[in-house]
């Protein structure tokens, strides 16, 4: 009946709580790095602010103009990685997907855009460490939105500073 209506598995109270009060939503005033993943076809984006202390993730925030699946996944992912190290963060998305169970292809795209934004923030961190002046690092999503299909671009236009 609802083949085309997106729905989180079972709509648990936990999912509902993330929907009503997304965790870590917004901006960080003084992040170590900023990453953006954008789907240019739809204009949907996720921006990810990360505050690092060596390889520990002290704080993160994210914002998006995307759908509620993106919001829920962003809320869960950021909640998982705060207070953990980068090695853990790189495996967190997989752990989260296992926890959520089978995702629809559309929900998989939402998970990809969140994780890609995090990767973009890490690229920004590396670039800043190497002395580049880059306000944020932008990764463009392809239709498939799979990590292997990412098209990297250091978006000069977004260097507002």
């Amino acid at each position, binding site marked *: *009946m*609802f083949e*085309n*209506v*997106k*729905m*989180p598995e079972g*709509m648990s*109270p936990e999912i*509902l709580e993330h*929907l*009503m*009060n*997304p965790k870590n*939503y*917004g*901006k960080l005033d003084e992040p170590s790095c900023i990453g*953006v993943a954008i789907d240019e076809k*739809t*204009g949907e*984006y996720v*921006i990810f602010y990360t505050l690092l202390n060596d390889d520990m993730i002290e704080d993160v925030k994210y*914002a*998006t*103009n995307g*759908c*509620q699946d993106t*919001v829920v996944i962003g809320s869960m992912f950021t909640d998982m990685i705060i207070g953990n190290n980068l090695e853990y963060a790189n495996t967190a998305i997989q752990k989260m997907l296992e926890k959520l169970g089978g995702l629809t292809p559309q929900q998989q795209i939402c998970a990809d855009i969140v994780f890609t934004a995090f990767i973009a923030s890490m690229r920004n961190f590396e670039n800043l460490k190497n002395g580049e002046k880059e306000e944020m690092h932008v990764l463009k999503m392809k239709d498939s939105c799979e990590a292997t299909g990412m098209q990297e671009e250091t978006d000069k236009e977004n260097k507002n500073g």
Partner: protein
Amino acid sequence: MDKLFRKKHDLWLSITFASFAIDDEEIKSRLYDFALIAFRHMKWIAGNVLERGENYNYDRDIMLYKRESVFDILEALESEIKEIQNFYPDDELGFRMKNDDNYLLEYISQVINNDKNNKKITAFNMQRKWLDKNLPQDQIDALTLFLFDESYKEYELILIYAYMQARTTNIKQYNIYQDLIDESQFHLKSFANMMAKLGILALPRELHEMTYIVKDLDKFIKDSIDEEIAAKEMCKELSEAIKDEELSRFFDFINFQENYHIELMRKLL
């Protein structure tokens, strides 16, 4: 960034969502009228900020009043209205806003003076039950997702159109933005009142500047038209799937409204 604009944005949302949270039709309706007045205040403050050559943004500090009774909500609202008075300028707009707020405070005090008005708030209980309807769980789930997605989208559109309206000098565009804002205000009200009935009323999330600072108007309008078409499809699916005549008719009605909404957007191209 302008502190008064930020405070007024918060207050507009507080009045609006107090109206959505309260069940009593008369209080709901009166508060909603005041919310629309607060939105006009916001628009006028924005105009003054831009005239001074300064800028404002849509960052906010608001926490939704998730209270258990009508009086708890109204008392919190009363405090917020009193607090903003210190930020009003000593000019015609400042006097106007103070006067409007005083009238709202008077209304709130009238409501609070009658104990019969102090009903329980169910808008945040997360029960997801529509008391006078018997919707199966899969329909409730689909409706929940739809309402979260669309209430955010309507809030987003209201603010984006207001941002662009404040910056256009073209009268035709200005009027189209106003129509689009009015349409989205109505849709936000409709969807948020449904969320309150289901016990899942929530504040739409904050807008990041990447969302409302539009660099390419044509692309933005084309993307928005695509989004409207997708929203129409969602409405159609919900209307077909929900086996409740009243709700089904409502989604057909919204779906039909989107046609002209899209037409208005095309006029901006």
